[in-house]
């Protein structure tokens, strides 16, 4: 490995596509985030081209590119792929090299991963098929209430009380919100209730033992969620640096460490 070696990671997520470039010291040189859209291959290529351009590199400068995310098998230029579960674990262990519990709140699913002191996964869980408690839930409900996604976090912070949501079904929650609006509940309090609802879905998945690290796009945009989770757990939780890039960063780390593109 020389100083001029560069590695790429692409994460084709359900909502967003993320690309990163790392240098040989595993430092983040550049990143790109864009909506995934409908053409995974084109989106991944455009995202990687953008990140290469911003770091004044070309594809030829990359030793390897690994892909991850739901569209990981659609990235024609990737040398290999890893699941997002592997990549989030990898990224978290890079910054927190010890036993941790990773909580990734993604666009369409949540994952909880237990990592041992050597960085190996002990076990993982993904949420059930239903999207309640994921980014998609927040998106749908925010749209119903005409709240731009980028205002959810600040609005939740204005809450004076949390309006508790009783249902774990997205559709039922929307109906429940109507009832709260009808009786005059304040919007920030309802939004805080929605964030709390996501936190509850996470707590239902696993006891979340030990040190907790949060990753993924939803937490990156709504750090208030980490504060709520910490209050429920009664101990602090960590947010991964550049949490939305965790998948792509982990993929690039794999690219930098594994010469072979398959596990064989």
């Amino acid at each position, binding site marked *: 490995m020389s100083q001029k070696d560069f590695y790429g990671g692409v994460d084709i997520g359900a909502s967003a596509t993320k690309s990163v470039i790392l240098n040989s010291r595993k430092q983040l040189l550049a990143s790109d985030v864009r909506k995934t859209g409908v053409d995974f291959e084109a989106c991944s290529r455009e995202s990687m081209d953008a990140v290469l351009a911003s770091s004044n590199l070309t594809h030829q400068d990359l030793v390897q590119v690994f892909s991850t995310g*739901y569209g990981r098998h659609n990235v024609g230029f990737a040398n290999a*792929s890893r*699941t997002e*579960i592997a990549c989030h674990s990898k990224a978290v262990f890079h910054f927190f090299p010890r036993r941790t519990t990773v909580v990734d709140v993604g666009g369409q699913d949540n994952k909880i991963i237990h990592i041992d002191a050597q960085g190996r996964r002990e*076990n*993982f*869980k993904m949420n059930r098929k239903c999207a309640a408690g994921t980014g998609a839930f927040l998106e749908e409900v925010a749209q119903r209430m005409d709240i731009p996604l980028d205002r959810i976090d600040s609005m939740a912070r204005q809450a004076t009380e949390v309006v508790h949501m009783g249902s774990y079904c997205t559709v039922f929650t929307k109906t429940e919100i109507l009832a709260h609006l009808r009786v005059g509940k304040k919007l920030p309090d309802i939004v805080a209730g929605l964030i709390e609802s996501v936190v509850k879905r996470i707590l239902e998945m696993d006891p979340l033992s030990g040190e907790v690290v949060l990753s993924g796009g939803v937490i990156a945009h709504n750090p208030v969620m980490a504060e709520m989770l910490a209050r429920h757990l009664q101990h602090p939780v960590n947010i991964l640096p550049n949490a939305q890039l965790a998948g792509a960063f982990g993929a690039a780390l794999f690219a930098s460490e594994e010469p072979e593109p398959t*596990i*064989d």
Partner: protein
Amino acid sequence: MEKPKGSAFKKIQATKQMKELMEQHFREMDEAAKTKSRKVAWCTSVGPAELLRAAGFLVFFPENHGAMLGATRMATDLIPTANAIGYSPDICSYLTADVGSYIQGKSPLSKAYPGIEGPPRPDALVFNTNQCRDVQDWFNYYGREFNVPVIGVQTHRGIGNITKAHIDSISAQFKGLVPKLEEITGKKLDMDEFKRVVGLSRQCTDLWKEVLEIASARPSPLTFFDGTIQMGPAVVMRGEQRAVDFYKLLLAELKQRVADGVGAIDNERFRLYWEGMPIWGKLRDLSDQFSSLNTCVLASTYCSSWVFPALDPDDPFDSMARAYIELLIVRDEDYKERYFEDQIRHYRIDGMIFHDAKTCPNNSNNRYGMPERLSKNHSLPTLVINGDLNDLRCYSEEQARTNIEAFIEQLAEK
């Protein structure tokens, strides 16, 4: 890490004979129902088939039809028809697919065997609730439709140790079925014939057990996916000589594979146990994915559900009672954990996949903390996949594939 599809699926030669047998079975039944030459009983899959055969019935298994509806991917289109008449999408999707099939007049039997329109009309419907309560409601639907008797056995649930009281209760219920069966056939039950049928069923089950247990070889000559296909005669023809003959043939082929060092998949790297129902409409996709990951899913609770070592021709009623109450599905959590522990050891299992089937709670053993206990007490990696036996609306292909791939990555890190 996942390699492109390019199946390492190795065909079992005996499958040809199995398919011929299954066709014979369905054609005989169709002929009997149409000509009224023999009485036909519908029986739940782990119901008292031996008693029905000995009483003179040809025996049809609606769950087998349900599985065919799933495997041919007809089920998901037919289930809503049953939902629309009040059968919930949350109850057994064998039931809802089968009722939908009946209402719409669409059956995989007619596609597989030209000339057969669908299941044979029953003269009696005989259930055993050892699996679940849904089978009784399923048969009650057809009892009303065909105006034929629905009779059956109520089995205890959540049993730890099996006691004489359990056996006496089930045995008495089996005996209680006899007068009604004799009334329908117009013949007395021939006890010698009953003993002969139980004896054949025992031979069949012993051979089937041997077939399944050969998967303990490394590499395994058999996958769970093979098992779901090869189990047909053990389910629908137990108690018949031809099922015994078939499993002798299959066993010989598998023994030869072991002798030759031939694995069911290439380069077996990991060995997994499948807990729960098959996802019938996705068997091939899953089989290919595991193959591509050099992973052999080689043992299952499901295929072992037709292993009845208690059957004894000298004591047909009591031994049938024991055989049909010993099943894992009837037992308590402690028994199940001990059973899984034995299986893990016997098959040298690296990890266990639990299929949480949305519409089959009794066959979804992940719902009371079992995966967590196995991980904690036996250091066994486990994975839960959400899906269903027949209703593919409950299955997320991408989530399942990612979960499986991540699970194999996890095993590879060890």
